[in-house]
């Protein structure tokens, strides 16, 4: 008899966890992992694999967990995914690998993400094996940006024996994994551990290097790099463009989360960067970023945190688990609501005026388009507002790299392999697709690494 439901993952109590930035889910024990693994039907056609952007051999690693051979399981995963501890925690599994799972047609799908996380955490407790690196090829490659796209591309190229240097604008590598996703969802030590492994493989990481300012892409070629991968992400915050948006107390989610995560403002004054959160907080948006901001605000002492979202909960782009956690912790969801103006006193925001919305015809994305209900204006008192309505591609590299073709929405144009309009320049991740997911950025980094490797070895006839 197959267990119809997933083995539950133990979590920190919702009341206790809003006082701490410690991680919420505890992860499976070996017994729990083996019990969950036993639910997998080992489908020959493995439809789950099609749902994973990096094609992890899912039935194989799950069988290995079931058999108790955790070392083999992590090795299987790492053949195609070098950041399993991250993906197991943050992938939107319900729309990726777990969506096509055969078991899911009748019961709950196999908890693939939780099993992946288990295998990765098991490895980190039992000594991580640094991947073997091929003998040096003599090629030098520059990777711009150290988010999941850049880190994955760097790892794959270094493994082939190339000498990779990663250039990162901020003072710590990791991209959104460091500055965006909060500690309670993705502990920073996990990201730092993965980066340490990369360094052990020989990847050089230069922080405080803003490409487009400190150097340009052309300078990198002049310095002797033979190929450049751009993984600069979607770091440009979008604002609502409504009156009063610059009042004190209104943050972009990027600012709010960067203060807290990268700069550790939750430890102020032991750390120097401040962050200010009032008793009543409104977060505008319905994605992962909005959930992260809302749950962070609670942990910083807000008494009431409201999510304002213009569609309904069913359309929220956030991972189901994040919405669930947010609600459990007491975040209020106000759906079919859209802010139209802010009011301030003495320069500080005190009120947000909203319009009620209703769902109309489906739009280009297939989701029903929200339309305002005339005359439905109402006001909410607020002390802090966090705008989390999306990020656009970071414009600095496109602006400072002549000949780099820019496509719609400010993304860098690439072909399927990540090649840009400039010879030797590749791009991938959010900078090429617009804001997407960790695993799709990693997939792009992988494809470009393979393409760069092919073109370099071909160019010197060493293939």
């Amino acid at each position, binding site marked *: 008899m197959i267990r119809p439901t997933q083995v539950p993952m133990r979590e920190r109590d919702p009341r206790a966890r809003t006082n701490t930035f410690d991680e919420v889910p505890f992860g499976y024990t070996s017994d729990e992992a083996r019990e969950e693994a036993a639910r997998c039907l080992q489908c020959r056609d493995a439809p789950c694999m099609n749902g994973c952007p990096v094609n992890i051999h899912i039935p194989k690693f799950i069988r290995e967990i079931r058999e108790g051979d955790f070392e083999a399981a992590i090795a299987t995963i790492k053949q195609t995914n070098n950041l399993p501890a991250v993906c197991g925690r943050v992938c939107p599994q319900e729309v990726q690998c777990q969506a096509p799972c055969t078991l899911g047609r009748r019961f709950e799908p196999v908890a693939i993400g939780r099993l992946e996380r288990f295998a990765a955490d098991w490895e980190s407790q039992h000594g991580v094996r640094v991947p073997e690196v091929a003998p040096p090829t003599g090629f030098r490659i520059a990777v711009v940006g150290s988010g999941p796209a850049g880190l994955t591309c760097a790892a794959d190229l270094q493994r082939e024996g190339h000498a990779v240097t990663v250039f990162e*604008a*901020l*003072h710590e590598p990791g991209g959104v994994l460091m500055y965006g996703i909060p500690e309670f969802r993705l502990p920073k030590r996990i990201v730092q551990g993965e980066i340490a492994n990369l360094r052990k493989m020989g990847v050089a990481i230069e*922080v*405080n*290097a*803003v490409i487009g*300012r*400190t*150097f340009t892409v052309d300078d990198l070629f002049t310095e002797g790099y033979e190929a450049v991968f751009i993984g600069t992400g979607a*770091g*440009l*915050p979008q*604002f609502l463009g409504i009156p009063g*948006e*610059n*009042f*004190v*107390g209104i*943050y*972009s989610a*990027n*600012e709010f989360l*960067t*203060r807290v995560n990268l*700069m*550790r403002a939750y430890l*102020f*004054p*032991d*750390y*120097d*960067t*401040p962050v*200010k959160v009032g008793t009543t907080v409104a977060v505008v948006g319905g994605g992962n970023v909005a959930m992260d901001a809302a749950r962070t605000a609670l942990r910083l002492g807000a008494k009431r945190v409201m999510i304002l979202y213009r569609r309904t909960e069913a359309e929220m782009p956030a991972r189901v688990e994040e919405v669930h956690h947010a609600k459990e912790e007491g975040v209020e969801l106000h759906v079919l609501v859209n802010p139209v103006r802010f009011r301030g006193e*003495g*320069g*500080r925001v005190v009120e947000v005026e909203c319009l009620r919305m209703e769902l109309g015809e489906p739009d280009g994305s297939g989701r029903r388009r929200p339309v305002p209900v005339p005359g439905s204006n109402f006001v909410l008192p607020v002390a802090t507002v966090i705008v989390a309505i999306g990020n656009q591609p*970071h*414009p*600095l590299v496109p602006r400072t790299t002549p000949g780099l073709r820019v496509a719609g929405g400010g993304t860098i144009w690439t072909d399927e392999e990540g090649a840009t309009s400039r010879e030797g320049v590749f791009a991938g991740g959010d900078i090429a697709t617009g804001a997407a997911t960790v695993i799709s950025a990693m997939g792009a980094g992988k494809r470009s690494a393979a393409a760069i490797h092919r073109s370099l070895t071909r160019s010197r006839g060493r293939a």
Partner: protein
Amino acid sequence: MVNMIRAKQPLGPNVVELVVEAPRIAARARAGQFVVVRLHERGERIPLTLADWDPGRGTITLVVQMVGKSTRELGERFGIGDTIRDVVGPLGSPSAIRRYGTVVCVGGGVGIAPIYPIARALREEGNEVIAVVGARTKDLLLWLDRIAAVSSELHIATDDGTQGVKGVVTIPLQEVLTARKVAHVWAIGPAIMMKFCARTCQEFGVPVTVSLNAIMLDGTGMCGACRVEVGGETRFSCVDGPEFPGDLVNWDLLLSRLGTFTDEERYALERYVAAQGGRL
């Protein structure tokens, strides 16, 4: 060693000049740009203007006014041979240096230092540079020799009249604008000074560029902490600026946003001072 302090000297009460090893930044620096520094593992990221640089020696010069926790810590606890954890730059869009004709560069207080490289670049481009500098009192004036070396006239004003004319910088600025045909004015200093310089220039119909000191976090355009309103539009001062046309700036907004963290800043400073043994 990169980011090591090579020279340090006081320039007056609560102002220090630091020469820092930063060859990559020195090689690319242009007038009007700045760096972001983080003193140590627990430090915040603070913006400081590139007051000078030497690509040959691989150094940059920062002039720091000690106003709060981080700037006091930098001025008081960091000496020659110490290393600043992070220095990143050059950031911001460079000043629009070209041939204007006769230009005026106004520097107020510690703003005299960042106006210097702009004046120098304008002079090298063949402009006639008239300098106007001011401070509350004589002791707060700095770099007069350097400013004099790159200008054809140097006008000085102090609030208390201890040097130059008694009063604010807009007095000599007004005199220059009355007497001469001026093509462009640059003004750097406290927000309130820039605001009044902009007003004066507007009266004379002369375009004016100011350098906005908004609160910053990353300094690379990814957070929006530094947003200002210019001509009714929201701009990010770290990438779109820091220089903007002075007559179009919403000064009230800039000033109110500078007060975002007043309570936290005061608390951090008191705590720092207490830890230093209460020396204020």
